[in-house]
């Protein structure tokens, strides 16, 4: 028996900051101290606080060590694991209150969170099926197969109010009901793990931290609609997720939880992986299925919807990873439990990938209806360097910006659409006053221009024309008529594009135009970028009163654009200046400014 468990995060964030080396060192050190029979090391999925990685938790004390280095391991083992003295200096600051150590659940970051989809992430070893079973895993599948009819399963899903977590928010139960109602010799259950929104990584974290929950939910869906085969379409850029899924599928087959005659009920279900090559459009359902079939990933018109003719022209359901992660809990705890969380039309919880200008970047799961203010100021720990909140971007390239005036709107599917954004897959990028909204719109359009598959003209040509106009504006060459043309193009794209990629591509432009029109006008009329981001519209200058003539700036200028004699004020040659900002960074007297 292990008297102590050391959980080390093996998610992508912590792995890239070296958690695998920490684990190696830890195991070596534990052995050296002769504790290998008393202390167990567990590699888990993501804890959520990625900004503080590599992360380590020691139970039963629940000591949360952050930013652990290899050199700290010896101390942790000899002090904490051997002698029981918590190494206070390595604890996450928020858990230390004077001489007291607070439980993690009482920190600002975790206090308001409610973990349903992420319940096992950071708790179990994802490469061990028995740990998943130990937390109640595969019990929902057992219950469904032995006690419920497919109709009852679908009714539970309908009653729970669960809506698709991939972006559009379509009721999951309804999707299943349609597919169940279309008779066919073969049906398919697919999982969309082609997470493509820049900055969103909740699906990856679920797959890395709790892969079995997806397998179990897909088997439940298979039973509900009458399918015996499932496919998980996961991007090849998620190597850890792919590896753990493969291990999980292998173990589930070995334990008879996938394959023929599951639990002796005569129900057959198996799952295969399909790796995506990283095209954004393959997250669109028809393109995804086309890609599984082995063809070029391009969307096709709907109807027919996949519930009627999907993969290989057979009735198919496609749900997102996070959606599936909720399913077994709904079966076990009942639809009422799930529906008791959230708002009237958006039930349950939602995972957000918190990023951008916020202190606690990472993964948070909160009940629907939490306000943006709570997410940014409380859970996110506010904005670094005392800057002011300007806007938050949700929904990635399909979404929009939420300005400060909507800081207190409860976040759910319908409220976000009402204020011109959307839930999307849950990327939430916080922006402060140093962010140029025109530049942000341009960034997302660059992304959609790159990722447009080119099949339909409105998207292929329309996104590029819009980007060209934005480039003109950020260079100070825009006209007021350009704003009208942007809106006109946006309307055409939304109504004429084949799939959601093109239909929603104008959203970042439209929402910034709606809330930050003054910034567009500043770029066009005053030829100024108020946030000081657009290089063509700003100049670096030296204040002669503050300049001491130390020559530091001149020596650091990569283009020799700064001239001046020692102990005399320097001058920047605007013709030569490449606006890299190196001089401003180096100046010790605050004499260099941009305008």
């Amino acid at each position: 028996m292990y008297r102590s468990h050391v959980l080390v995060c093996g998610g992508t964030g912590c792995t890239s900051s070296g958690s695998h080396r920490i684990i190696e060192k830890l195991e070596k050190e534990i052995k050296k101290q002769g504790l290998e029979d008393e202390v167990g090391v567990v590699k888990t999925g993501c804890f959520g606080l990625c900004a503080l990685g590599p992360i380590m938790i020691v139970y039963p004390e629940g000591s949360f060590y952050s930013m652990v280095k290899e050199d700290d391991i010896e101390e942790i083992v000899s002090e904490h694991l051997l002698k029981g003295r918590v190494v206070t200096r390595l604890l996450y600051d928020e858990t230390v209150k004077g001489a007291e150590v607070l439980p993690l659940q009482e920190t600002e970051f975790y206090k308001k969170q409610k973990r349903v989809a992420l319940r096992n992430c950071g708790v179990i070893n994802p490469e061990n099926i028995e740990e998943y079973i130990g937390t109640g895993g595969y019990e929902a599948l057992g219950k469904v197969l032995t006690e419920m009819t497919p109709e009852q399963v679908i009714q539970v899903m309908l009653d729970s109010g669960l809506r698709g977590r991939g972006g559009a928010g379509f009721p999951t139960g309804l999707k299943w009901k349609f597919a169940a109602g279309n008779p066919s010799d073969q049906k398919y259950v697919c999982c969309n793990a082609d997470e493509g929104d820049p900055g969103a990584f909740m699906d990856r974290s679920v797959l890395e931290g709790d892969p079995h929950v997806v397998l179990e939910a897909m088997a439940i869906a298979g039973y509900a609609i009458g399918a015996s085969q499932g496919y998980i379409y996961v991007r090849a850029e998620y190597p850890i997720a792919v590896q753990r899924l493969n291990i999980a599928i292998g173990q589930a087959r070995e334990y008879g939880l996938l394959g023929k005659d599951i639990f002796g009920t005569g129900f057959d279900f198996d799952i295969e992986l399909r790796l995506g090559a990283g095209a954004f459009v393959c997250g669109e359902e028809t393109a995804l299925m086309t890609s599984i079939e082995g063809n070029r990933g391009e969307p096709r018109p709907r109807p027919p919807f996949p519930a009627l003719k999907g993969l290989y022209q057979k009735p198919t359901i496609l749900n997102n990873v996070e959606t599936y992660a909720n399913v077994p809990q709904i079966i076990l705890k009942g639809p009422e439990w799930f529906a008791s969380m959230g708002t009237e039309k958006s039930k349950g919880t939602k995972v957000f990938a918190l990023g951008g200008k916020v202190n606690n970047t990472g993964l948070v799961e909160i009940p629907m209806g939490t306000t943006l203010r709570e997410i940014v100021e409380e859970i996110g720990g506010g904005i670094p360097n005392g800057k002011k909140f300007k806007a938050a971007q949700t929904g990635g390239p399909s979404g929009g910006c939420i300005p400060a005036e909507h800081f207190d709107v409860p976040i759910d599917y319908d409220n976000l659409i009402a204020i011109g954004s959307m839930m999307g897959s849950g990327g939430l990028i916080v922006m402060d006053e140093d962010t140029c909204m025109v530049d942000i719109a341009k960034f997302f359009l660059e992304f959609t221009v790159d990722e447009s598959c080119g099949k339909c003209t409105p998207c292929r040509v329309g996104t590029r024309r819009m980007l060209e106009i934005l480039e003109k504006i950020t260079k100070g060459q825009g006209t007021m008529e350009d704003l009208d043309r942007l809106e006109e193009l946006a309307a055409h794209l939304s109504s004429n594009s084949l799939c959601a990629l093109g239909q929603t591509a104008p959203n970042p432009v439209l929402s910034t135009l709606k809330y930050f029109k003054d910034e567009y006008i500043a770029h066009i009329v005053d030829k100024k970028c108020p946030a000081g981001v657009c290089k063509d519209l700003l100049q670096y200058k030296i204040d002669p009163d503050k300049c001491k003539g130390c020559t530091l700036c001149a020596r650091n200028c990569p283009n020799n654009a700064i001239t001046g004699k020692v102990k005399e004020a320097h001058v920047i040659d605007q013709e030569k200046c490449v606006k890299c900002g190196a001089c401003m960074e180096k100046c010790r007297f605050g004499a260099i400014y941009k305008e």
Partner: protein
Amino acid sequence: MKSLEELQAIRAKMQGRVGFRSEDESQTRVVVGMATCGIASGARPVLSALADAVQEEGLNNINVTQTGCIGLCQYEPIVEVMEPGKEKVTYVKMNPEKAMEVFRLHLKGGQVVTKYTLAAEQK
């Protein structure tokens, strides 16, 4: 695996191990002093005896863990039992045999073994 019973059996086996990773208020905590003084006077075998016994009997509501110096070095090895809603009981000058007695009578039987407590020792 062909039946729900088999699934339940795995769950029962794993529950203690996974359930351990929570800060549950309803758990009984058994703490062994493992500072230099404790280790020197033989706290390691006491700790492993208790940990093994709890594991063997499958008592999932009991956590056995270690702590630093309590400050009563002359009484080491010290074992403290903290049950929810009850006063802490401090056992002193433990050895594996005495610890097993505490395990049988107190942790399983609910009866404090008065003769080994700090209060008895100080009389």
